[in-house]
Structures are given as C-alpha cells and as structure tokens.
C-alpha cells in the first residue's frame, strides 16, 4: 500500500496522511483535475458575463452601472485624451510617485524602528505602543490633522500614505529580527564580529525576507490609502480622477479608475514577489 500510494502520488512520501484517511485535506498539486487558477479564471469570466448581461438587459441604469464596453471605451479615450486635464498615464504616474515617495520614507523610518524593537528592550518599550496606537487608525481619520499641521500640499499626501505604511514595515522588520537564530549570531560573534557587525552582516540579511514581506504589505496598505490622500487639493492622481468623475456622475470613469487601481495593485504585488524570489532565494529553503 505504501509502495502503490507512493508511485501513484509522487508528491507524497509519507503514509501518515493515508492513515488519517481525509483525502480532501491533502494538498496534491500533481493530481489531475481543476486547479485553483482555472477556477479563478472562470469566476472572473462569470462576473464579467453577468456584468455585461445586466448592462445589455438594462437591469440597472448606466449611471449606476455602465456596461463593460462603455468602461473600456472610457479607458481608451482617457488614455488618449485625458480626463480633468491629465491623461490616464499622468494620473497613474502622479499616484505611483506619491506611493513610492511614501514607501521610501516608510522604509527609511520603519526599518530602523523595527530593528530597534527587535534588538533592544528599550527600543521595544518606546516604539511598540506608538505603533500599536497608529496601526488601527484609518487614514481618513488622521487626514484632517495632517492637513492642519502640514497644509494641503504634496508633503501631506505623501505623509498620509507613509503613515499607513509605517506599521507594516516596522512590525515585519521587528518580527524578522526576533526570528534570527541565536546560533547564527553566536557563530558570527565567535568569528570575531562586533555588535555592529552582527547587526549589519547577520541580523539584517536574516531579517530581509521579513522586511520584504512588510514592504509588500505596506505597498498594499499605501495603495489603498491613495483615494483618501488625494481627497484634498490634488490636481492629478487616480484617486483624484475618480472623485472628480463621481462629482459629475461620470460613472464609467469611476469604474474604470477602480479597475485601473486594482490592476496596478496586482502588478505591484506580482513584481514584489518576483523581486523577493531574486533577492532572498534562500527564504523557506533552510
């Protein structure tokens, strides 16, 4: 039985799973049949079809739900001719610029803070409560205060996004630092490493996979703060574009903007996963 089950499912080398006899709980990537990805593709197609169908049958007035074709047309025209004085690309670049500026700021502050939390008790005592305080506040809540303090210019918008990114970066860094194996640190010290060298040559690289995970979560958090950040006195940006369109009930631009934001988020996520694979190929292989 062991032999046959082994040859039937090369992915499984133990027969403990067999004794449990819960076949549905076995992860079996090599089994024939539907993959999760195929199911996802079908789901998306079904949603699109339902959307198109309801638009065709005019179940909902176009001002509430424009047809996929209308949204696509808007995508083409806004890309070419622009909307509220900027093309789609210019809006996207403005938004991406803010998010990346915020990311740089969040990394510059969050990584050292995370290191401090992970390495020293005093650091943890100082920063942990501050982060725990900041983390659950929705961006729209601190937006007014940021505007009162820093005005309505570009720095405020970047700051709002950066605040949303800070906690994920710092906390992921801290958990990465705390997860560094003591043996690795001891080995480095016995090879003559000073405290600073241990941080630079052992702790930081060991925590890098966690830091990158934090970066990925932060980028998601920052990107979803975009519309809030562009609520006030923006002249460009995807969030600004959606709000302007909403004020004039140009629903097809609103929907198009939402889809573009989602698509960019997807691409960012995908890109960072690729970067992770290149930068920390050892993660999960130890």
């Amino acid at each position, binding site marked *: 039985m062991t032999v046959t089950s082994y040859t039937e499912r090369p992915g499984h080398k133990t027969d403990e799973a067999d004794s449990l006899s819960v076949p549905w709980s076995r992860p079996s990537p090599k089994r024939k049949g539907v993959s999760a990805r195929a199911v996802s593709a079908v789901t998306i197609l079904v949603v699109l079809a339902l959307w198109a169908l309801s638009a065709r049958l005019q179940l909902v007035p176009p001002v509430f739900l424009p047809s996929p074709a209308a949204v696509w047309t808007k995508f083409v025209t806004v890309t070419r001719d622009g909307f509220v004085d900027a093309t789609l690309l210019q809006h996207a670049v403005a938004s991406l610029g803010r998010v990346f500026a915020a990311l740089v700021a969040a990394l510059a502050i969050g990584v050292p803070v995370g290191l401090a939390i992970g390495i020293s008790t005093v650091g943890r005592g100082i920063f942990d409560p501050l982060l725990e305080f900041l983390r659950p506040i929705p961006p729209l809540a601190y937006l007014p205060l940021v505007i009162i303090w820093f005005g309505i210019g570009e720095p405020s918008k970047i700051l709002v996004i950066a605040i949303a990114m800070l906690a994920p970066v710092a906390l992921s860094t801290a958990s990465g630092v705390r997860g560094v194996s003591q043996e690795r640190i*001891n*080995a480095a*010290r*016995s*090879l*003559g490493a000073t405290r600073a060298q241990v941080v630079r040559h*052992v702790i930081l690289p060991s925590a890098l996979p966690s830091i990158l995970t934090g970066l990925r979560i932060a980028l998601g958090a920052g990107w979803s703060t975009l519309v809030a950040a562009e609520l006030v006195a923006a002249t460009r940006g995807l969030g600004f574009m959606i709000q302007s369109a909403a004020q004039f009930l140009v629903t097809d631009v609103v929907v198009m903007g939402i889809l573009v934001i989602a698509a960019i988020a997807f691409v960012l996520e995908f890109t960072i996963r690729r970067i992770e694979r290149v930068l920390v190929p050892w993660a999960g*292989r130890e």
Partner: protein
Amino acid sequence: MPHLVLDPHLVLDKVSIHYDGQAEPAVERVSIDVAKGDFVVLVGRSGCGKTSLLNVAAGLVAPARGRASINGKPITAPGSDRAVVFQNDALFPWLTARENVAFALRLRGIRPAERARRADELLELVKLTDAGDKHIWELSGGMRQRVGLARALAAEPEFLLLDEPLGALDALTRERMQTTLLDLWTASHVGVLMVTHGIEEALVLATRIVVLAPGPGRVVRTFEPGFSRRYASGEAIRTIKADPAFAAARGELTDAIFEGEAA
C-alpha cells in the same frame, strides 16, 4: 592546574555553571585544560553540561564560579581565537560557500581578492574545491559541516570549539567526517575542544576524553586513548578500529559513561 602559561592554553578552572531559575547548578567545579595540539572530547549522558562547558569556553555563557581563561587572559566574550562550530552548521544562507568561509576575513576588512584566495585554500583543505560558488541550500549535510569547519578555520583560531558537529549527519558521512576532522586538526595545529554523543567518535578523535556525569555535571573520569595520534602518524583508520585495544577502550569508556547510572 596552576602554571606559567607560555604555550597557548584554554583553561576552565573549577568552573560551576548555574542557570537562572534552576535550583541545582548545571555544572559543578569542572576543570579542563586544552593545550594547543590537544584534541579534548567531552562525553557524557544528557544533562551533564557538556555543551554548557563548551559555551563557557566560547564566552557565550558566564560561569557562576571558577575561571575560564585563554592564554592566561580571562574569557569574557566570544572571540575569533576560539572559533565555534555548531551542530546545526549556522551557515549564512545569503552567502555562497566561499563567502561563508571568507566571513571572518570580511569582518577584518581584508580585500575581496585576498579573501577569495584564502577561502578557496580552506575549501580545498576540507575537500570542497568545486563547491565555492554553490549556495548553502544546495549542499548536503556533510558538505555544510565542512563549510562550517573551513569558516571557523578562516578566523585563524588557536582553538576550535566543536559542539556535536557531526551529530546531525548520517552514519556513513559521520565516519568520513571523522577523518576530515583529524586531517584538519593535524594540518592546522589548533587545540580542539569537542562535545559529542558518539563513543566511537570520541575514541577515534580524542587525545583526551573527559567523561562527565549529570546532576550536577562533574568529571568522573579522564582517558587518554591515543588512537588519533596513531592516525596522525599514518596508520589507517580501519586498522585502528579493528585493533582489539580499540574494542577494549570502547568497552571501558562505555562503562565509565554509564557508571553513575545505577547510583
């Protein structure tokens, strides 16, 4: 053993180790003296404090009483004069095998070309000539321990502290690694302090075996087997192990380890 130290010596003098929150000391009044060129092996049942003693020598654990010193200077922190090799190699997975070996040299700010040259020499010494560019996760357990040994030797230590370095390896790899260890020991003239669970391993490698018993950890016997000297002077490891004297020593050592068992 009080003495004027001229040769390099790693000395634990009546060392007691007491961990916080434990009623009994882990180790009580243990003295061990490792001279350069010695291969001292600590054996004993679980809980006898072998690894604790090694950590005191490494400077990772401070003794509650007694004194740990190297060349007459007290040991207060880890140092590259006593490089440690751990059971779970503790290699750095973001570096290649060569970069791991060169780690101590990098800490000292030695130029990359020189680092690579030294590292390749050491990789050759541990018989991993072609593995320099490999990533750690591409290496087998035995190869990883070889990299770990080469990395420790790169620090040019006077003493090597080995904490069950072969413990995680399969029996065949272990056997081959024993001769590798002996070759390194003879080639590098370091003093070795090693912890092991393997009785045969202790006999093959040690110039001196210190048998410890638990509760609290203390020295019960000391052997000077001399088989490793025979290997160093050219005798084959197979011949040594087939010698009736080896079997006799094995029986004696086993008895010594389990002596306190009944008590």
